[in-house]
């Protein structure tokens, strides 16, 4: 029998496993929304910790949050940012569409961690209250979208763009190395006029360069934060100046040019910036698929194919055919592109332009 403690919310008492830092609302969500295995992305934990720390800084600077509560909230957020307590965020993707329960999960964990710092009882909401302090000047309806935008931008800049740039640069280096190798061009998969191998690969590098530009452009919309608009965009219960101050704090913490959205109603009722960003991922996936396919064709062989490229021998390719090497990296990349683009799009053959066509 798991030991439990009593946590409360506006609907009453809920029993929570004693060793967990979350509170009543997280526990209710766990019970009502345990659908599938997909948890709220871990990137959202970090994004929310940045957001809560930034909000605490802005509220403290505005004289609304006392020194002690501010110090404790920042300390708890810093622990989360250092990678601690991530197992205290157990909620599933398939929950309330607003993400409210995840926001409350963050509020409850920060509040309870502050209780531990202060030596008070878990669930006592003292000295730091989940709603009054951790959620001060915020609504789930402006914090969740803002955390999504932070997660999207931080990971696009910190992970996706470096990976795409690295691939672009590696392809460009090969293009430079192979700039004088004249080979046959192909259109409609039939022989065409000559081209250099370098020109062909220079084309691939250019495709990736264009994709990098598209993602950077789309991020401009993602930098506009909804924070300060609170529940419906009007800013009720957020102090004047909070929106700008919290955006400035988030910029300071992430090094990315976030700003307070000039139109809070736009970024609350819709998340078109994320749809656009996602669209750039789809375009990138289409490009990668084409590049992977071309390399598969050119490396087809080694004795009965195009045989123009020799690919690395990374692993044995067959359990029965000795000595076989396969373009598995191209397969894995194109499969992940297919996953990215969705099953229905996969059947649109026009998306895959083989070789020169």
């Amino acid at each position, binding site marked *: 029998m798991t030991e439990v403690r009593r946590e409360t919310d506006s609907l009453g008492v809920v029993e929570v496993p004693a060793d967990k830092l979350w509170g009543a609302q997280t526990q209710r969500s766990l019970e009502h929304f345990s659908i599938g295995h997909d948890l709220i992305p871990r990137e959202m934990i970090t994004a929310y910790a940045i957001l809560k720390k930034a909000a605490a800084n802005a509220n403290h600077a505005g004289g609304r949050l006392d020194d002690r509560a501010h110090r404790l909230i920042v300390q708890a957020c810093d622990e989360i940012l250092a990678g601690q307590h991530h197992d205290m965020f157990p909620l599933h993707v*398939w929950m309330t569409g607003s993400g409210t329960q995840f926001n409350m999960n963050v509020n409850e964990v920060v509040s309870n961690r502050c209780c531990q710092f202060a030596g008070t009882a878990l669930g006592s909401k003292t000295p730091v209250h989940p709603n009054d302090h951790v959620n001060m000047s915020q609504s789930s309806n402006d914090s969740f979208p803002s955390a999504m935008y932070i*997660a999207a931008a931080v990971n696009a800049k910190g992970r996706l763009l470096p990976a795409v740039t690295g691939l672009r640069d590696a392809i460009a280096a090969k293009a430079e190395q192979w700039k004088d190798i004249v080979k046959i061009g192909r259109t409609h998969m039939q022989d*065409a006029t*000559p081209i250099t191998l370098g020109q062909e690969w220079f084309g691939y590098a250019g495709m990736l360069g264009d994709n990098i530009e598209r993602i950077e452009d789309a991020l401009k919309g993602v930098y506009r934060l909804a924070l300060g608009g609170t529940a419906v965009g009007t800013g009720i219960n957020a102090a004047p100046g909070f929106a700008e101050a919290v955006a400035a704090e988030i910029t300071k913490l992430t090094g990315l040019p976030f700003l307070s959205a000039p139109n809070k109603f736009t970024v609350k009722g819709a998340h078109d910036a994320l749809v656009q*960003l996602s669209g750039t991922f789809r375009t990138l996936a289409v490009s990668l698929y084409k590049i992977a396919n071309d390399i598969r064709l050119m490396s087809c062989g080694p004795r009965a194919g195009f045989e123009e490229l020799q690919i690395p021998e990374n692993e044995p390719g067959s359990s029965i055919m000795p000595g076989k090497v396969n373009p598995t990296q191209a397969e894995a990349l194109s499969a992940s592109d297919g996953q990215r683009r969705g099953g229905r799009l996969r059947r649109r053959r026009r998306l895959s332009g083989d070789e020169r066509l």
Partner: protein
Amino acid sequence: MAVGFGGAGGYLEMNVYKPLMIFNITHSMTIISGGCTNFRKFLIEGTKPNLKKIKEYVDRSLMLVTALSPVIGYDKASEIAHYALDNDLTLKAAALKLGFVTEEVFDRVVDPAKMVRPYVAE
């Protein structure tokens, strides 16, 4: 797909597919980032050209005839290509057999290295 569906799900003052949207966006970034990095490390960086095969294809190519079009016209150039294919000849042998160009003109015009940049033979 899913993000578009999610984005379309905003009613009045709030969108109600936010977890769906961020789940798919972060998942996409994770698999595309990993895909690009592995593809670079384990495929692109170690790929080498097979120079022998590449040269063989260029030498046997019939579409090199394209460079002759500005000199002898599309129709005659086309005839050379078809004749070479039908009779299993090189382009040069077919061109000389049909008598449309001299060997000197053929060698000067049909140069694959010239054909990879803007070039109109005279």
